């Protein structure tokens, strides 16, 4: 939409046409008691010079550390073209551009995004995105309970290997709807969900089983075994997946003999910078038979009355503005800007490029783990294969390692102690394609030096666990 200014004369003419004396008079309908007037408690405004200085000082507090942390958000390279195009006015400042008459470009882009996501996940249909991975899982749980008509229990099996923030967010959203999340333990040796943990619930009425792949520890689950078990019990399978990993790993649509029913996850790894936590976007895909239960916007391709191809929002009767309290969700939007970036990112990388990125992530993490565990004071926590993250156990408290490393501008990894105290002094480390051999050597060097200064004779420190 072009910019159309109006002059004082324009305003006077418009007011005269509608018979209003001034603009204030147009707000007469609002009762005087509801007008706020001056806001108390809000300090005086700063001028542009003052605020610019304040913001520059604040911005300087952002570091650019050498990042070896993943845990749900990953430091990938985003080609410059992605945000050059995404920040164009047509994409950047468009407001809810979903009218078929005015927004064919945007709708086509979303359609392409949906197509790419179904390709990555191996499922039939995708929506136009959700807010983020965590709320995406909550929506998937709600969807599974609606869609699984044979199950009345509203119970979901949720492995402890699913991201702790996703589990918390899901609980917040589904608790008041009477949905119970039943926690499943993981193998202390492998870091994965064992079939035995599922078997403990054999014969029970379960609406769905959640499987994260790779799981929060970066470890690979036995997705085929878990999927088939869930289906044999009449439960649906919700896959929580990393989109970059799907370039290498088996897609959810091919898990087990029938495939996962719903796939969701965090889309940040596709062209979205870390940006101190957001905004990111969630994605959701499902089998065709469940598409009417899928929340969020869906763009469809069709023919107009002249037989010409066009794009439009479809299946809208499920959405909040029509169905209200019986809608599939209260969400009635998507993360359009980030979806734009992700679609351009995937187009530029292509399938082969994405595969190379995934392979590089895996290779670099293997190098990182090898470099760090070369020290007698560091060992892997689990013995199963991983994708691009792995937990490591340290012979010193994590704090004693993390603080000096951060002083050297290194972000060593995610501290696992709070959510998984049973793992001891454990750190989740990650190396994406952006970490070079030199970066890994820097980390290893500093880490070894820290251990050296703290484990000299006379120091009361435990040696490496036997």
């Amino acid at each position, binding site marked *: 939409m072009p910019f159309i200014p109006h002059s004082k004369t324009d305003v006077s003419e418009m007011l005269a046409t509608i018979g209003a004396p001034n603009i204030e008079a147009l707000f007469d309908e609002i009762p005087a008691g509801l007008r706020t007037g001056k806001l108390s408690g809000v300090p005086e405004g700063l001028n542009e010079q003052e605020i610019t200085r304040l913001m520059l000082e604040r911005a300087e507090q952002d570091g650019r550390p050498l990042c070896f942390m993943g845990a749900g958000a990953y430091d990938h390279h985003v080609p410059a073209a992605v945000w050059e195009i995404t920040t164009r006015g047509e994409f950047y400042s468009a407001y809810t551009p979903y009218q078929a008459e005015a927004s064919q470009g945007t709708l086509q882009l979303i359609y392409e995004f949906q197509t790419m996501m179904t390709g990555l996940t191996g499922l039939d249909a995708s929506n136009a995105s959700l807010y983020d991975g965590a709320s995406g899982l909550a929506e998937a749980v709600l969807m599974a309970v609606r869609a699984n*008509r044979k199950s009345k229990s509203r119970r979901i099996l949720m492995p402890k290997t699913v991201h702790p923030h996703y589990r918390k967010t899901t609980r917040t959203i589904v608790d008041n709807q009477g949905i119970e999340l039943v926690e499943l333990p993981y193998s202390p040796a492998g870091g994965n969900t064992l079939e035995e943990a599922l078997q403990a619930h054999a014969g029970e009425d379960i609406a769905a089983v959640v499987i994260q792949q790779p799981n929060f520890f970066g470890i690979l689950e036995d997705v085929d075994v878990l999927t088939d078990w869930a289906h044999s019990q009449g439960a649906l399978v919700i896959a929580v997946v990393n989109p970059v990993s799907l370039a290498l790993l088996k897609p959810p649509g091919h898990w087990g003999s029938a495939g996962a029913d719903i796939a969701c996850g965090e889309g940040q790894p596709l062209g979205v910078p870390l940006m101190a936590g957001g905004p990111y976007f969630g994605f959701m895909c499902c089998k065709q038979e469940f598409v*009417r239960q899928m929340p969020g916007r869906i763009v469809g391709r069709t023919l107009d009355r002249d037989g010409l191809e066009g794009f439009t929002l479809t299946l809208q*009767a*499920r959405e909040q503005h*029509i*169905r209200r309290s*019986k809608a599939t969700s209260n969400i009635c939007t998507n993360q359009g800007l980030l979806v734009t970036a992700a679609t351009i990112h995937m187009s530029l990388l292509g399938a082969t490029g994405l595969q190379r990125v995934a392979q590089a992530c895996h290779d670099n993490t293997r190098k990182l783990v090898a470099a760090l565990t070369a020290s007698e004071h560091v060992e892997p926590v689990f013995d199963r294969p991983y994708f691009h993250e792995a937990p490591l156990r340290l012979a010193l408290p994590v704090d004693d390692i993390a603080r000096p490393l951060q002083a050297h501008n290194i972000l060593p990894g995610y501290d696992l102690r709070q959510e998984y105290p049973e793992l001891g002094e454990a750190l989740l480390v990650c190396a994406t394609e952006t970490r070079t051999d030199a970066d890994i050597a820097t980390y290893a060097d500093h880490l070894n030096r820290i251990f050296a200064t703290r484990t000299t004779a006379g120091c009361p420190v435990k040696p490496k666990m036997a």
Partner: protein
Amino acid sequence: MSNIPDDLKYSKSHEWVRVNEDGSVTVGISDSAQDQLGDMVFIEVPEVGQTVTAEEACAVVESVKAASDVYAPVSGDIIEVNEALSDAPETVNQDAYGEGWLFRMQPGDATELDALLDADAYQAFLDSESH
């Protein structure tokens, strides 16, 4: 404009009811309702064996512009549903009182049928609603 067969009963939520010889009742939505809703794209029928209470939402008819609940006219058990509608939802538009039937149920208490409207009363109800 819309037709209202004499031999059926009607609810204020626009369902029609045909009492069958065996005491079961067949339920659908009226011609006026399908006309208001527009082209049907999907019909969600109840499950056979499901027990419903009168005025409880038990089915959904989805058109291009709205998804509307269908309410059980009386209490009872669902004994048959119209499977053909999953491939041809437009049947509800084309033949609302015939092939567009939604489900058949066994009423628990036949006297509940007396509370429904006859054709004239339903016509009067539509007239009063139309402005």
